[in-house]
């Protein structure tokens, strides 16, 4: 006999298996309807192939696998599709999902199907071909989780051991037991097919608990002359857990977070082996399974070969179900199964048992008592965890400790809760904590991504700003040149003067009254003060515990805030001094001042500031602050030197009056406008500013267009230049709109990627529109078709991802894809019509 290893921990719950093995496997009459969920497995839901009202044949594929990790579903009998919509499906959460409702016609008419030819054996097919057949037969692990079998059977590593799980350690369930007793030959053939597909592993083991001698005896004659070994081991829950069975049969452990394939092992359930045999030998897809109906709330306890999609009510109705005597209706076994609250839920590929427990069998759980740390749970844990510590830390939401205590290695077998004398629902705590931790991890990834994006955006914006500044500089120079040119022509001054006048008028309009200005400045000061206060406080805390970098940043912030406060104060002082003189006057004053005066003033103010900074350096006792101040001081000194040089360079005979009245006027005009605008926008939020920019730009474009038309009409030589200018303006407008969009969505960009995506999408769309404007109709259509195609492709990929992740966006993505498809068809049609 082969050596078996001990299961660590484990419990001996009352088996309660004898009730349902008294009678052979039976078949139920056809139910009135079958409800077939599109997703009965782990992975992406199957893709629908039929429509409402279709007549389908038994075994016909109703939905096909929609990705690598996905399997199809098939019609369990012939009949008509009456509905395709959401129904509650068997799931611990009681959630609903898309299901196909099939009304059987009672004819049991099979679709054409062929298995391997009688003259061939499965060895004449390639493993790849067999895998394809398994995939299309809709086979997903029948033991528990329902992982697509084809995926499990194509591991990337070499497989040395194939383990067939016939352990069935959960109390009450006898589906595998009865299957082994009655269909042993088919199971063994199935195992041989599995072994062939895996490239003939060195060992093929069937593990059976020693409480199933009949199953053992039934299989024995068929494995006698094969390389398959039957291994029996002591009955103890949870020996049938994949990891535990591997440990019992091979003494090896699946590495934490890894797969059995990592140690060269593949594990399959006996039910799966049986389904594989049916699929390969007869070409029959998975449309039924063995399910145990048991529990004292049912008068008959036995196993059935049930069609997938059979409502539970149908099963129960044939077993004398007494609802009043039923305390809980459980799908699966008493240790890991989940309760059902809806009797219309269908049997699916993973439904091995329906346990209608009576009140004696499953009384209402007593209230939990405090954990006395007796350690019985730790003794029972097959994963060698410390359930009492996990419980302790789960209660206090101490995620770090939970992870250090290997929470994620808990297989949720329930052995700990089973033994706990204080009746603590331990597993429930673990599930909740796992959920919490997963959610946090996801949120962290999301926020990391958002942060990265935000920083990238900021960097990009800065770059753009710099580029724009450079352009502005260039434009200014060009304008000056142009002005010198036009000065020579002599026909412009009049116009210029007019412009100046209107501009001044506009500026005066925008000009706030001194009282208003005063109020605004006061508010600004208060704000600056409070800001300074906050940043200083932050600096305090950061000094205590922050990193050096943070300190520097905080310091800079404080400096900045101080400066702003000073600015604000000095502005107020200025305002008070010059009360009465309007800004416009001031501009003119400054403009009319001689360059010498300006320079001298500048030098004076520089000197003053240098003195102040010096004083500050002396006063300050903080090294970093000093450094910052010193560098500031250096800059100021450089400025001073510049100014002094400039002054020295001024020829002594420079007239003390402005050189050129016109330049002054134009400049004054520009300055006034700018000031007015600045005054108007100074206190506006970024969004408002941008909006104004957009409006202004639109106005300018309007004007530029008019001018361009004028020029065209007059066949002016400026047409080209004007055209270029217009284009630039349009680009700017686009930019501004884009920025505006980003700004408006910014508050949410930090934690929401859709906002950001949307704004960039809008920007892209706008760019496209602009581009399209210059294209021919046909090109446009072609473009549209191409872009729609690529969008559709992208949307499909996203949808698939979402489906694989079971994201809640699936539905909206699906509608999006459908819409895109419609649009694409339309566009293609248009293109075809346009292009005969």
């Amino acid at each position, binding site marked *: 006999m082969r050596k078996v290893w001990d299961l*660590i921990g484990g419990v001996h719950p*009352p088996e309660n298996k004898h009730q349902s093995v008294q009678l052979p496997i039976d078949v139920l009459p056809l139910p009135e309807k079958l409800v077939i969920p599109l997703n009965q497995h782990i992975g992406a839901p199957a893709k629908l192939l039929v429509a409402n009202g279709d007549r389908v044949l038994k075994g016909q594929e109703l939905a096909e696998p929609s990705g690598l990790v996905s399997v199809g579903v098939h019609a369990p009998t012939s009949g008509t599709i009456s509905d395709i919509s959401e129904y509650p499906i068997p799931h611990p959460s*009681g959630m609903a999902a898309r299901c196909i409702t099939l009304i059987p016609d009672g004819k049991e008419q099979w679709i054409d199907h062929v298995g391997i030819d009688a003259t061939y054996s499965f060895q004449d097919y390639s493993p790849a071909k067999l895998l394809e057949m398994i995939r299309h037969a809709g086979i997903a692990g029948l033991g528990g989780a329902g992982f697509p079998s084809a995926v499990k059977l194509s591991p990337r590593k070499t497989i040395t051991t194939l383990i067939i799980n016939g352990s069935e350690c959960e109390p009450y369930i006898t589906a595998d037991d009865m299957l082994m007793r009655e269909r042993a030959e088919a199971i063994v053939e199935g195992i041989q097919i599995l072994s062939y597909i895996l490239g003939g592993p060195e060992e093929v083991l069937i593990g059976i608990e020693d409480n199933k001698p009949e199953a053992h005896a039934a299989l024995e004659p068929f494995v006698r002359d094969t390389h398959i070994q039957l291994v029996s081991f002591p009955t103890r829950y949870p020996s049938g857990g994949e*990891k535990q069975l591997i*440990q019992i049969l091979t003494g090896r*452990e*699946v*590495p*934490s977070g*890894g797969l059995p394939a990592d140690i060269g092992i593949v594990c399959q359930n006996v039910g799966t082996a049986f389904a594989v045999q049916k699929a390969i030998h007869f070409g029959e897809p998975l449309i039924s399974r063995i399910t145990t109906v048991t529990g004292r709330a049912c008068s008959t306890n036995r196993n059935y070969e049930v069609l997938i999609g059979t409502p539970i009510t149908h099963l129960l109705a044939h077993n004398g179900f007494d609802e*009043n005597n*039923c*305390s*809980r*209706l*459980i799908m*699966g076994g*008493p*240790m*890991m*199964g*989940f*309760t059902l*609250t809806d009797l219309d839920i269908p049997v699916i590929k993973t439904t091995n048992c329906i*346990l209608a*427990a009576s009140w004696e069998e*499953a009384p209402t*759980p007593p*209230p939990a*008592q*405090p954990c*006395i*740390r*007796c*350690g*019985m749970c*730790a*003794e029972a844990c097959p*994963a*060698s*965890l*410390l359930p009492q*510590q996990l419980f302790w830390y789960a209660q206090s939401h101490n995620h*770090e*400790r939970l*992870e*250090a*205590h*290997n929470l994620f*290695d808990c297989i949720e077998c*329930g052995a700990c*809760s*089973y*033994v706990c*004398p*204080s*009746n603590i*629902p331990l*597993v429930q705590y673990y*599930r909740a904590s796992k959920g919490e931790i997963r959610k946090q991890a996801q949120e962290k990834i999301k926020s990391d991504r958002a942060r990265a994006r935000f920083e990238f955006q900021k960097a990009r914006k800065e770059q753009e700003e710099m580029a724009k500044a450079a352009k502005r500089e260039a434009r200014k120079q060009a304008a000056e040149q142009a002005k010198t040119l036009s000065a020579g022509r002599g026909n412009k001054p009049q116009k210029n003067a007019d412009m100046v006048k209107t501009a001044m008028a506009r500026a005066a309009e925008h000009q706030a009254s001194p009282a208003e200005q005063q109020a605004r400045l006061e508010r600004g000061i208060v704000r600056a003060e409070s800001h300074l206060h906050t940043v200083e406080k932050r600096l305090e805390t950061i000094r205590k515990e922050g990193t050096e970098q943070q300190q520097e940043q905080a310091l800079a912030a404080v400096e900045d805030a101080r400066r702003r406060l000073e600015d604000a104060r000095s502005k107020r002082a200025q305002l008070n001094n010059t009360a009465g003189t309007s800004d416009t006057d001031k501009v003119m004053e400054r403009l009319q001042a001689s360059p010498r005066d300006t320079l001298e003033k500048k030098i004076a103010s520089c000197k003053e500031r240098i003195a102040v900074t010096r004083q500050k350096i002396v006063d300050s006792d903080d090294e970093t602050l000093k450094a910052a101040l010193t560098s500031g001081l250096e800059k100021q000194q450089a400025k001073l030197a510049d100014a002094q040089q400039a002054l020295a360079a001024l020829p002594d005979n420079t007239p003390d009056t402005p050189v050129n009245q016109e330049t002054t006027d134009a400049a004054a005009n520009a300055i006034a406008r700018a000031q007015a605008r600045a005054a108007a926008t100074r206190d506006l939020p970024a969004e408002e500013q941008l909006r104004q920019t957009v409006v202004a730009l639109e106005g300018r474009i309007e004007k530029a267009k008019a001018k361009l038309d004028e020029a065209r009409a007059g066949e002016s030589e400026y047409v080209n230049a004007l055209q270029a200018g217009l284009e630039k303006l349009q680009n700017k407008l686009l930019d501004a709109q884009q920025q505006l969009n980003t700004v408006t969505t910014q508050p949410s960009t930090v934690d929401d990627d859709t906002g950001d995506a949307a704004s960039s999408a809008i920007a892209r769309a706008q760019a496209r529109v602009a581009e399209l404007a210059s294209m021919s109709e046909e090109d446009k259509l072609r473009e549209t078709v191409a872009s729609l195609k690529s969008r559709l492709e992208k949307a499909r990929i996203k949808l698939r991802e979402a489906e694989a992740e079971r994201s809640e966006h699936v539905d909206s993505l699906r509608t999006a894809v459908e819409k895109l498809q419609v649009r694409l068809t339309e566009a293609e049609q248009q293109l075809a019509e346009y292009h005969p």
Partner: protein
Amino acid sequence: MALLKITSPHAHTAQSTASVMRLVLLATTPGLIALTLFFGWGSLINILLAGSVAVLCEAAVMRLRKRPVMFYLGDNSALVTAVLLGLALPPLAPWWVVVVGTSFAILIAKHLYGGLGYNPFNPAMVGYVVLLISFPVQMTAWPAPLPLYAEGVSPPGFLASLQIVLGLPGAGTVDAFTAATPLDTLRQNSGLLIAQLYEQDPLFNLARWAGAGWEWVNLGFLLGGCFLLYRRVFTWHGPVAMLASLSLCAALFYDGGSSASHGSPLMHLLSGGTMLGAFFILTDPVSSATSNRGRLIFGALIGALIFIIRSWGSYPDAVAFAVLLMNFAAPLIDNYTLPRTYGHKKSRRATEKKE
């Protein structure tokens, strides 16, 4: 009827906290019988008195905390604390000693720390130590074991004992019956070889292995402990480690039975509170280390501490001090003794951060 939504598992053992506690109570009987046989009714009176005080205190606290009183009394944990304290106290100790000790154990050591499951220290031992420090005279007055009584003199009967405990006038005092314990005798011995001591002192020469009466009391608790082990109320790790380390220390310092010897391993195993401590005190799950490896360390250190305090400390017995000291260390031990989880190469530390 609405079907219930309940998480798995849907099956549960019949075992409850109350039944675990009942088993513990049951397991103390052999020791209690031995105590009663050799030292009179005092221990039984202690237990009854402590038990009622404990239940009253527990109920009062639950009232104050606005919890369902009967539900919490039902877990029997207060009773266990009381019984263990009652067994540890000298028989015939004055009633107020018992009352003070028990109420301190329940009110302060248990409930001020959050009640059952949250107390870092073993409540019974906290009560014991408080009494030992506060009332050293009463706490060290142990009656003589039965074999030491002179011919014709009999120990006080139940009623007489009750009168002594209650300090009723004319009841006489406990002093009339006290005698040194084996550990006291050994500590005071300075001139005699161990063999001579065994020969001369009736406490030893009337005994089979260790000390008259005491050896049977310890064997009684050993028996009860084995019963609990058999019923899997706790694992062997703590007790075995403690007894082994105590024996080892005793063997190391036996010194060939010279006059400086601290007594043989057998003497230590069967004297004082050794077995009560090993199977009933340090196995208190709440305040001991958590994992099996942790319990090995926890038990071994207690064994060593007991020997050290017995031999070189100034208190006659040391189980209470040793256990309390190690209660301090239990969380630390826990941090470093996580079991190796399935699928992991080695065990982790509880303090480990995410890798």
